[in-house]
């Protein structure tokens, strides 16, 4: 089946083109599933924010907007490096492909590291819902805790997607180093790029929803 250069066409496909089409449709379908997966949490968020706007504003003001903004920047940059990695894969620049995959990995790692610090802060300040939840100066503790339930549910699910992406990225870097990807066949890089951008986009929604409620009313951003 090597009539298409180094393209590995699996036996049940008629052509490399069919194989790539299948992968692309499959990935987009998967992302549709992912949208619905996060969608449930977004729904819960909107319902409760509508019901308890004051508590949500108060709780949101307890998040660290500086850290959130930093992480947003980190992720947007990682989307850029990922897009560049796909570009260099498509024109067969192996070294640049590896370089940008590693940069993406580092940025993803930075995001997760910062997130860990943030979670730890929340732990220290008893801001994790449950038996030890405390909210100093919170008027409506039970509903601020509901905000933090959503905060951890949403960012936790997002972070677990980042971790999965991180692991796949490590594998892709090894494969890229071995020269597995060619301009004719770099489907895994392209598909992973779609996934990575999706995870990014989710964060771009999470950041304003969780960190930026009513910042101006409460006397400035920080």
């Amino acid at each position: 089946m090597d009539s298409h250069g180094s393209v590995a066409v699996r036996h049940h496909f008629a052509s490399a083109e069919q194989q790539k089409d299948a992968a692309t449709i499959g990935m987009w379908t998967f992302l549709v599933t992912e949208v619905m997966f996060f969608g449930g949490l977004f729904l819960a968020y909107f319902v409760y924010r509508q019901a308890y706007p004051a508590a949500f504003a108060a709780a949101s003001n307890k998040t660290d907007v500086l850290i959130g903004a930093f992480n947003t920047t980190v992720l947007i940059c990682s989307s850029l490096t990922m897009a560049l990695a796909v570009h260099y894969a498509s024109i067969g620049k192996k070294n640049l492909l590896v370089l940008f995959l590693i940069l993406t990995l580092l940025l993803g790692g930075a995001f997760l590291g910062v997130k860990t610090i943030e979670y730890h802060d929340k732990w220290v300040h008893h801001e994790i819902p449950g038996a030890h939840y405390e909210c100093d100066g919170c008027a409506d503790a039970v509903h601020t805790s509901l905000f933090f339930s959503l905060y951890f549910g949403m960012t936790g699910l997002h972070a677990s997607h980042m971790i999965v992406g991180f692991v796949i990225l490590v594998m892709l870097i090894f494969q890229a180093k071995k020269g597995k990807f060619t301009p004719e066949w770099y489907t895994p890089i392209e598909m992973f790029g779609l996934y990575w951008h999706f995870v990014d986009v989710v964060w771009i929604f999470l950041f304003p929803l969780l960190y930026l409620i009513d910042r101006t009313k409460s006397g400035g951003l920080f």
Partner: protein
Amino acid sequence: MEPRSFQLLPDAASSIAVQVDSLYAFFVAVSAFFSLLVAFLIIFFAVKYRYRQGFIPAGINEDGHSVGGMVLEIVWSVIPLGISMIMFAWGASIYFTEARPPADATEIFVTGKQWMWKVQHMEGAREINELHVPVNRNIRLTMTSEDAIHDFSVPAFRTKADVLPGRYTTEWFRPIKVGAYHLFCAEYCGTKHSAMGGTVYVLSEADYADWLAKGSGEGSIAEQGQALFNQLGCGNCHPNAINNYNGRAPNLAGIYHTKVVLKDGSVTRVDEAYIRESVMYPQAKLVAGYDDIMPTFQGLVSEEGMIKLIEYVKSLSPRVGSASSAPPQPVTSSATEQKTGRPAVPAGKR
């Protein structure tokens, strides 16, 4: 209640039951017609067109894409659609009757708890797993749960409603037949779910009056609510027309069924749910002009106590009984609040 022999329909003991039964009869007739039609056609075709060696029926290639086929497709889409719209409209109209309690209904409070029903009558009588109601009077149940979701179901009245923790739901009926009827919990609520039932007794006016007279001896719900109000010290901050205005908390006299302006500028109606929320989570919807100094009474007030408090607050607004015609009470005028940033108070107290 004596066990009855085999029946196909439960007793029809409420005004709505008769309507529901007619609707049911219509649905059964439509269903029977279509089920029998399809069954007949299938059996008829299976026999008439059964396979016989060498026999090829005429019109074997009819596949529904001819003009005749299209007509058939349209006919059997549009006719069921038409019938189902009748079903929808009839069902919806009955539902709207069921969902809207008449203004003159007698209110009774129900609290569901794993696994019993606790009932409080306005006049003070209390009962467990039983409900006594007078015949030919509209009854409205205001219900809440202390734990899981329950459902107050009386098949003979053809009505039920879920009973949820943390909020009030209502259900109403007008009993038309004296007798004893099953009360079930219809929403699964754990181990003894099937034992969480009892009996609804529909009594004649006279018997009901006798039954009420045997009441709890603790006074009406509103009176019990006032006792609880004093015991919890609510009056230290909340003026209730008996004590003096002290500016720390909104005046409760006449506040029920008015609209108040909240701190964030939005307006909310003072109903059972709002009063309950204000006791449990005082800061959730703070009235504009007041500091959030009120502590939560979560854990200090039971659901039954809450019902008493609400009834007491309602009793401070004398015209609630005819809610639909009640004009806004003069005490809390939203317009004044917005201008001054403080709630209006009776002039003499300023």
